[in-house]
């Protein structure tokens, strides 16, 4: 043990043995936190925006660009609040992005590829790493969730499409199919039919302005706008989730659970409890 270590232990009022226990406890918490971040981020995204990210031909300009960041910033903000409020660690959003990415790649390989035999190129997932790093970096520098929400929220939405463009661009190559022009992504979609998914989910792009060019930036800006409000709301939810609230147990249940000391244990006593215990008859 170095002199510095010993000084830290003295300041913390811990013996080396207790410090060892405390460190073991830390490791256990890290594992729990990692699984928690992964599972809640994943479940949230899967059932609120999953369809638009499962397949390459579903990654359209109208809804994928809009919904993906709006949904992913929910847990990014909530876990930022939890990690920042409890530990002053600006890692919540990046942890959500990292663990989500880990889970989603395992899943795309073992499930979409392994069980249903779709090619991996059809089920490549999107990513929100860029936005998550910006959120955490901004919180780290400004130490303010208000500034992070206002500016980080906007950048979270704005950076989503450009940061996914690199892997997405090749799928937008035009191809000729039965004398019609379509994209490579759509061609893959036609080839690998998904019998259990209604086709109208995929063919969703509507509007007239897109005739004159790509309106994707309209979706990007709208998404960035909504991300601001999402961030603040979910920061609040994350903050509430860290409240260590106890509600006193009733007297009888307390006794049932093994608490004998009525005074020390707190909780509501039933009317007449004193009479029974002291034997005084009113």
């Amino acid at each position: 043990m170095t002199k510095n270590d010993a000084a830290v232990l003295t300041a913390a009022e811990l013996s080396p043995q207790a410090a060892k226990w405390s460190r073991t406890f830390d490791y256990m918490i890290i594992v729990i936190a990692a699984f928690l971040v992964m599972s809640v981020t994943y479940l949230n995204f899967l059932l609120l925006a999953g369809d638009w990210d499962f397949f390459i031909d579903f990654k359209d300009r109208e809804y994928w660009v809009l919904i993906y960041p709006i949904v992913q910033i929910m847990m990014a903000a909530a876990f930022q609040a939890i990690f920042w409020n409890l530990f002053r660690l600006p890692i919540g959003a990046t942890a959500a992005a990292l663990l989500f990415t880990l889970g989603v790649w395992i899943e795309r390989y073992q499930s979409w590829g392994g069980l249903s035999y779709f090619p991996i190129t059809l089920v490549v997932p999107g990513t929100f790493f860029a936005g998550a790093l910006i959120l955490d970096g901004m919180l780290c520098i400004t130490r303010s969730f208000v500034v992070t929400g206002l500016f980080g929220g906007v950048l979270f939405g704005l950076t989503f499409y450009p940061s996914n463009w690199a892997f997405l661009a090749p799928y937008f190559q035009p191809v000729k199919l039965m004398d019609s022009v379509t994209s490579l992504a759509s061609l893959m979609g036609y080839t690998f039919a998904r019998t259990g998914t209604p086709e109208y989910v995929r063919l969703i792009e509507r509007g007239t302005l897109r005739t004159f060019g790509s309106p994707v930036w309209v979706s990007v800006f709208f998404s960035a706008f909504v991300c601001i409000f999402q961030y603040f709301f979910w920061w609040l939810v994350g903050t509430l989730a860290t409240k260590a609230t106890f509600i006193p147990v009733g007297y009888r249940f307390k006794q049932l659970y093994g608490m004998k000391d009525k005074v020390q244990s707190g909780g509501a006593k039933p009317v007449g409890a004193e009479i029974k215990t002291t034997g005084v008859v009113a």
Partner: protein
Amino acid sequence: MSISREYSRSTAEPIRGSVDANTKVYNLIPVVLAWGFLLAVYVGLRLYQQAFAFKYGLDSTAPVFETYWMSLFKTEIPLIFGAGFVIWAYLWVTRDRNMDALTPEVELKRYFYLVGWFLIYIFAFVWIAVFFGEGDATWHQTVVRDTALTPSHIVTFYACVPLYMVCGVSSLMYATTRLPAFAKSYSVPLLMVVIGPGLILPNLGFNEWGHAYWFTEEIFSHPLHWGFPVLGWTGLALGGLLVQVMSRMAQLFKQLSPADKARVVRSQPAE
């Protein structure tokens, strides 16, 4: 006396705490065993799907469906909940009936066991939230369902969900029957963490009703499914639960530290 002088005095003497230096207050072997068991079950179920889902699971009216899938369903439900009732009964019968006499050392050990229960619970939960959850989307977006008890549902909802429910309720029961803070008060975060994800099983009623009468196809983001993420959000309360656990464990660490003991002795007035 300054901190540095206190430190030099305390480290010059042999360190002796209120517990023996070799005392083990935690034991991770049960967690490792439970993880190993759960891993074997999940991998086994996934391999079973790989072998028999497309082969015998496409037509629920076929006799082979009854043999390979309904028999699994009829076995796993009583087996998992039966094991759960045994664990819960054991935790209840062996509860501490005099928690006021609990020593700090035993209390710390129990807190470590509680954190071990959380490790088992979250490990069970991540398998459905990530692994079998999206696997369900894979199956139902590929195969047209003709029953609520599909090869995916039989594994995801009727094996994985009951398994993490057993782990969650066991965590709740362990805390309530062995730790004073959780026996004298209901921990709101603990109740949320256990009851919220547990309600995913009854929420299946809505899911199946919607798929039976609204549409048989799979749109994963459809409002019909929003109950699942909403109930999953309750997992965030694990943050508050860990605060409760950490607060008490930090006190116990100090209580069992010789440094703390020495500080108490020094603070007493001289005779």
